[in-house]
């Protein structure tokens, strides 16, 4: 039962003003820029044309979507598995949790450097293979997109799974144990309990994790760039490229608007489809 009061608006006001001032206005000018505002051409769609004509743009759209489609499912399975292992209260689980959470605080710049030391031709992975007498593999070869994708996915998996893990574990802590125990008494297999008890109860946490991770996944590019150079373009990387190296803020803004649009659409879809009925009922 919604309360009609001004209190929430008063509480929101500072943050809204703050965001409008420091974010809203620059965003609007950014979007206008994509349509030629402030350039010599006046209002124009030519920057969109230039963006769409660039073969790297479509490649980066494909790569970005591919990366998200491959990475997120694997990442969520891994994170749920890790959370279940932690719930099993193994010995040293405190230590495990610590090590699994560390990448949470590692920047993508650093993560890129870390994985570069592993995947380069004379890096640690090939060194290890060499010690076992195997031939080195050219992991980051541009001729093998699959291997490149694999390397980027592994590095991103390392870097960003801990966020999902932390959200899922804290969600799990809030679950009442009685459901699970009841299911156990009734003879449900572990898989059935996971599928029909734990996961449905975890849905709210998973939703938060999914939205955040998707939006952040669109922002990732430093790792891919450190590992593959220019051979695995991602959308945000292209924004930087246009802005920084090609000094064309207009086309850069156009690409940024595309990113913005895709992530907003995804977020709205998630919010609509995953909205949990219990949360609605609670008020």
């Amino acid at each position, binding site marked *: *039962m919604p*309360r009609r009061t001004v209190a*929430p608006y008063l*509480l*929101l006001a500072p*943050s*809204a003003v*703050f*965001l409008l001032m*420091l*974010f809203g*206005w*620059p*965003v609007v000018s*950014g979007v206008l*820029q994509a349509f030629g505002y402030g350039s010599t051409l006046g209002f124009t769609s030519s920057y969109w044309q230039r963006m769409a004509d660039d073969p790297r743009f479509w490649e980066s759209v494909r790569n970005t979507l591919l990366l998200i489609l491959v990475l997120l499912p694997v990442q969520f399975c*891994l994170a749920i*598995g*890790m959370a279940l*292992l932690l*719930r*099993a209260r193994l010995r040293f689980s405190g230590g495990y*949790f*610590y090590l*699994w*959470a*560390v990448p*949470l*605080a*590692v*920047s993508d*710049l*650093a993560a890129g*450097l*870390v994985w570069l*030391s592993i995947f380069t031709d*004379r890096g*640690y992975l*090939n*060194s290890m293979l060499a*010690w076992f007498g195997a031939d080195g593999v050219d992991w980051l070869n541009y001729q093998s997109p699959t291997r490149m994708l694999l390397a980027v996915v592994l590095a991103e998996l390392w870097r960003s799974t801990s966020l999902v893990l*932390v*959200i899922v574990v*804290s*969600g799990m802590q809030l679950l009442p144990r009685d459901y699970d*125990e009841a299911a156990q008494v009734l003879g449900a297999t*572990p898989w059935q309990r996971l599928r029909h008890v734990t996961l449905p109860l975890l849905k709210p*946490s998973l*939703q938060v994790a999914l*939205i*955040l991770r998707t939006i*952040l996944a669109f922002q990732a590019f430093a790792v891919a760039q450190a590992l593959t150079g220019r051979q695995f373009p991602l959308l945000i990387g292209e924004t930087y490229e246009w802005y920084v190296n090609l000094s064309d*803020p207009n086309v850069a*803004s156009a690409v940024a608007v595309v*990113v*913005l649009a895709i992530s907003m659409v995804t*977020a709205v879809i998630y919010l609509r489809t995953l*909205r*949990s009925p219990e*949360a609605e009922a609670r008020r």
Partner: protein
Amino acid sequence: MTGDTVTRAPARTGAARPLPPVDRRPLRRLRLVRTAQHLVAILITLFMAAPIYLITLAAFSSRAELNRFPKAVWPRDVSIDTLRAFLLSPGTGVLPALVNSLSVGIGTLVVSLLIGAPAGYAVARYGFRGRDAYQLFLLLTRSLPVVVLAIPLASFFLNAGLYDTTYAVVLVHSVLALPTTVLITASVFVAVPVDLEEAALVFGCTRFGAFRQVVLPMALPGVAASSIFTFVLSWNEILAAAVLTLEVRTLPAQVLVSLSESPLRYQFAGGFVLVLPALLFILLMRRYLLNMWGSTIR
């Protein structure tokens, strides 16, 4: 897989008398499951920890060792020359940059909490018109590349006289941190039962009094956790920090500039220097990490 009471059971039943035969299969299966769990946990830990070990190794390797192939995955030719040159050579400014990073991180934490926590409370406690729109607006701030905002913001700060100060960086980082701050504090407040708050009201507390005496104490650990998140975000942000400052750079921005054209060994040393604080943050804050996400954004 739950309760560890079951696991300890074998110790006692193991010393059974020759009376009725005990069905040991469930126990054996349990042990098998346990072993498998340990194995998987160790495998995952290897995956998570190996990169950190290797970058440390690379940072402490001598130049000759880094050029060798195959490289050793154990410390073979240890040298701190690269790290020392990276950290101590005059003019790299690593120490002042560290101070700047700390003050920006803490400043961001304070500003974003002051502004974000009330909003989080409103989102958690009130159903009001425009709530969805507000949340969407918050997410929007996270989905736009910072680079597009750089120039409008830089001229804004120049005119405000804040250019090339840590204040400017604090403000921008607060904008970037606000969405997560609001989301996390909202979920923390949701987790505090409304009943308790209402009980306090019944017992004569004012709304603010109820908040201060009932809600705040319960929410504090979660709020603390959200501030770690903010701090880490600010610590790792490079682009805004690099554009808005010339001389008062933060650590990653400083590292970035000196890394981009440096030989690989410096890059590894830089990677290590950036990973080190992460190890420390999580070590200090791991207890609070899980208080961060109560339930949901709804």
